[in-house]
């Protein structure tokens, strides 16, 4: 049998300090680690997945991985199973990670699931080994520009019921200050559309000079990238960059933290570089112009979206908006900010509900909703378009219908600004 090779870093750089690891190296493997590492090697050879090999089984990630709290899955377990010869490409483990980034926060060895997952998944997709539900979402996105399979011609239809005029760039034919990148669920999902209408009303009330791409917009594609369809992501990015490049604007504002992540880190690599803000950041800077006329008088808690919080470090803007709402009783859940729980929708989880159910005792969204209830919240405030449908569904499925409302921050703002008569429009 082949001897195990040293799998630790020669030199690690931590906060700019170079740490040479050679004194600590295990030059001769002990019996316990004498494995046939060909399977592990085949995974760590995939560009992007190298860091899986760094794991030294400390178990810190298992403590924080949201999936492990409802199942039997964490980076430590992934490494261990792969080391024992179970190929990640064939394992259901490959599809359970929501790319929430909690493990990377604590891992001393920088085992980076945010890179590993898309890389290995890409391989699996090539080999035709991805769950059917996910492939349907890919196919829909490739064909229609949205994962739901809705008509691309109807992407701007929500604006008809927004209650205010929503300028569409191709008709406006003039430069704008803000280009609002709306994204798919806010364009098509009934509850997403309500949040979009609320945000449009807030923009209108603040006299924001803005426009949307309308039917020229396609999915930003970040979750498809994380789920293993980089080619699809690139095709979408090329399209969006081309469309955005037609217009003159000072900055992008996005509804979706996943799109925020893409515009911040991925689109620039492909030549699409614009200043970008999540809508909560944009509004937080303009709070002094906001006139609230109504009190909320509710106990509210906030769920940090993984891709706004942990991925991009924004914890304050949504809280600043919430704290400003008159009559709000804002309560933090135990899992908040850096340690926030995950709704389960990221990394393609949104399109693998049926698949993941077989490996989890409950949905992450259900667990989160129970936590919100525990803290006595009447409203669960969110700022990612995946979350309203996920959590509303979870409120029902955990038997808490009527106890907890799930609201986008834009809806809460519109309500307190007197722009929406009721909390939920419909």
């Amino acid at each position, binding site marked *: 049998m082949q001897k195990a090779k040293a799998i630790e870093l020669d030199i690690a750089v931590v906060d700019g300090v170079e740490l040479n690891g050679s004194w600590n190296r295990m030059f001769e493997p002990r019996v316990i680690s004498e494995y046939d590492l060909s399977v592990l090697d085949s995974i760590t050879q995939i560009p992007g997945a190298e860091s899986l090999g760094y794991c030294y089984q400390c178990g810190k990630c298992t403590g924080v991985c949201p999936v492990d709290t409802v199942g039997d899955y964490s980076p430590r377990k992934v490494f261990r199973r792969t080391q024992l010869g179970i190929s990640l490409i064939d394992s259901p483990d490959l599809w359970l990670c929501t790319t929430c980034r909690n493990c990377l926060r604590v891992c001393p060895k920088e085992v980076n699931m945010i890179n590993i997952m898309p890389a290995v998944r*890409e391989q699996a*997709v*090539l080999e*035709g080994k*991805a769950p*059917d539900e996910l*492939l349907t979402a*890919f*196919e829909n996105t*490739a*064909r*229609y520009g949205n994962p739901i*399979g*809705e*008509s691309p*011609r109807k992407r701007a239809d929500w604006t008809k019921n927004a209650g205010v005029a929503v300028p569409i760039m191709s008709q406006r034919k003039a430069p704008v200050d803000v280009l609002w990148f709306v994204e798919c669920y806010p364009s098509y999902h009934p509850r997403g559309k309500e949040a979009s209408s609320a945000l449009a009303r807030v923009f209108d009330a603040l006299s924001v000079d803005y426009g949307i791409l309308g039917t020229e917009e396609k999915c930003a594609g970040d979750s498809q990238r994380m789920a293993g*369809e*980089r*080619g*699809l992501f*690139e*095709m979408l990015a090329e399209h969006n960059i081309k469309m955005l490049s037609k217009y003159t604007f000072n900055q992008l504002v996005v509804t979706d933290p996943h799109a925020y992540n893409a515009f911040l880190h991925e689109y620039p690599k492909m030549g699409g570089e614009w200043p970008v803000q999540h809508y909560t950041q944009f509004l937080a800077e303009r709070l002094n112009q906001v006139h609230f006329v109504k009190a909320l008088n509710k106990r509210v808690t906030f769920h940090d979206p993984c891709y706004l919080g942990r991925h991009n470090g924004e914890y304050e803007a949504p809280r600043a908006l919430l704290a400003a709402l008159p009559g709000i009783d804002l309560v933090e859940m135990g899992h908040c900010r850096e340690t926030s729980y995950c709704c389960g929708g990221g990394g393609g989880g949104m399109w693998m509900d049926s698949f993941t159910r077989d490996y989890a005792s409950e949905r992450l969204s259900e667990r989160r909703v129970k936590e919100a209830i525990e803290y006595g919240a009447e409203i669960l405030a969110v700022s990612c378009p995946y979350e309203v449908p996920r959590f509303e569904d979870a409120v029902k499925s955990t038997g808490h219908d009527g106890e907890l409302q799930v609201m986008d921050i834009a809806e809460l703002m519109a309500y307190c600004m007197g722009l929406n008569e009721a909390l939920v429009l419909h």
Partner: protein
Amino acid sequence: MRLAVLLKTVPDLVEELALDEDARTLLFDEMSYVPSEWDDQALEEALIIKEESGAEVTVIAVDTGDVDTMLFTALAKGADYAVKIVGDFDAAMSNWQKARVVADYLGRGDFDAVLSGVQAIDDVDGQLPGLVAGFLGWPHASVITEVRVAGGSHLQLRQEYAGGLVAELETVTPIVVGVQAARKPPRYASVAKVRQVAKSATIDEVEADVAEARLAGVEYVRPVAAGHAEMIEGDIDEVVDRIVAILEERNLLRRA
């Protein structure tokens, strides 16, 4: 074994069908098109046969608009060759006309079996595989859910009938098969692969003359549309009566 798979695009029902309500004509240029779903099944079955027996798969489409992506996708999934029949064609081309040019092309080749979707949403003037077989005078079977090579030049087919009965047929080649469903769901071709194939592979172009259509003056109308459900009022018995009547009207009641 040489297999031909006939692919075509059809109007995408995710969009509203573009209908000129006054002229009762379809505005073919204003619609978006997608590969016909049954053709996807036919392609999958052909690729399964290829994996099992080393058959060679040629995908064929008539150039009625943008069919290149569909052909490249088929190549990315594993088809060996792609043929586009070009000529003075457009999206309004009828199945009869398509079948004519396809049959002419197939008649000149030496394919052992031709697979295509058993039907498509737009075949008002007949289903492609049956027409092609008829034009060629080849045997033909539709509603097929499995095609296997059975030694030498024979194929075994599984044909489905109403009520769940299934026949196993043995046939000589050449044969035309209308595929209802492949043995496995159609495979996925990743976008990167399709794009790479589109750069490297070629589509053979074959010229043909357009044949005459056989149906003239076809008009299209929308059936009475539903917005909100029509509510059935009354007590339980009245509701039962009405539902039974609706089912009866649509022949959905079980017959003896």
